[in-house]
């Protein structure tokens, strides 16, 4: 099949504003958008820039705005995207070049929620045991690959870049509800400030965008609830 890629390009060193480039690519219906982007970069226009690494939906490098909604280029099959595919960088972060955005602020938010185990009790001699239901409690949020698709699909984040964002909350949720972790209170405190979980308006764009199928809004809702009931 023949597909046309309409790619929003921007080189801050040369361009005053973003512009649309069109490329015709011959591809199989079962190819992924990433294959088509590679075909452009390798055989038509080497100046096209985008991030990719594993190409199998697990490294989280190639999240972008595909036909108007966020997805991973390596998981989006051409047969589901139509003959003309629009590709843009994710919204809400500074464009470094073409489809690459500056993710530093994204990872700053991630670090803010202390995404690591915190323990204060005496370290046990053996591992900290956990029952299957206790593990199940936060299973959904362990799947995050930090691609940024959720945060950059969120109108609350677009309106207020200070909002900690769905991805950081998902990663906080992963520890808040882990029975082995003892940093629950400090994380909840961080998420209770004005740019924390309360910015979420249950719009569900993050859930639609998540390539890992995490129910992001539910995780945010559970953190909101933990905050609401913690002092009762």
């Amino acid at each position, binding site marked *: 099949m023949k597909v046309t890629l309409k790619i929003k390009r921007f080189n801050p060193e040369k361009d005053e504003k973003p512009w649309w480039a069109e490329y015709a690519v011959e591809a199989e219906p079962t190819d992924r958008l990433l294959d088509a982007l590679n075909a452009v970069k390798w055989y038509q226009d080497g100046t096209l820039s985008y991030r990719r690494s594993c190409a199998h939906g697990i490294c989280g490098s190639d999240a972008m705005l595909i036909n108007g909604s966020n997805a991973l280029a390596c998981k989006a099959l051409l047969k589901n995207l139509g003959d003309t595919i629009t590709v843009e960088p994710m919204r*809400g972060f*500074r464009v470094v070049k073409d489809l690459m955005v500056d993710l530093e602020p994204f990872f700053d938010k991630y670090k803010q929620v202390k995404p690591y185990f915190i323990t204060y009790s005496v370290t046990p001699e053996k591992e900290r045991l956990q029952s299957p239901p206790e593990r199940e409690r936060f299973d959904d949020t362990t799947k995050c690959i930090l691609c940024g698709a959720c945060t950059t699909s969120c109108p609350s984040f*677009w*309106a207020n870049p200070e909002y900690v964002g769905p991805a950081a909350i998902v990663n906080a949720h992963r520890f808040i509800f882990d029975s082995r972790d003892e940093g629950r209170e400090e994380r909840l405190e961080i998420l209770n400030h004005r740019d924390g979980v309360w910015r979420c308006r*249950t719009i*569900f*764009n993050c859930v639609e965008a998540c390539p890992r199928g995490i129910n992001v809004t539910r995780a945010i809702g559970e953190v*909101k609830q933990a905050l609401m009931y913690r002092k009762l």
Partner: protein
Amino acid sequence: MNIKPHEYLTYRGRAGMWAWILHRLTGVGVFVFLLAHIVDTALIGWGPKVYNEAVALYRHPISRVGEAVLAGAVLFHALNGVRIIILDFWPQTMTAEKKLFAGVVGLFAVVYIPMAIYMLRFLVH
């Protein structure tokens, strides 16, 4: 970073995004009406003549169509508000978020269609 207004609307969201946009629009709409309503009731301070003349504006056909739109806005805002309350207090319902929105749309249609016909029947007479 700066997101332009059209970029909010060109993101291809689904039910949840539509619910949010409509909730905002109806909320602002109802708020603007309330402001106007505060002004018209305050006119009573200038005596019954001024007040009656001002309130007579509400009987104009355009106002009456506006009234039907307002009723729809209040109804949608209320129903979707209940949806949001359910989602916020019982996060486990978030897996059925689309069904809840379908419920809002369904209930809205059931209540609003007869209501709008009743309110706008003067247009055909």
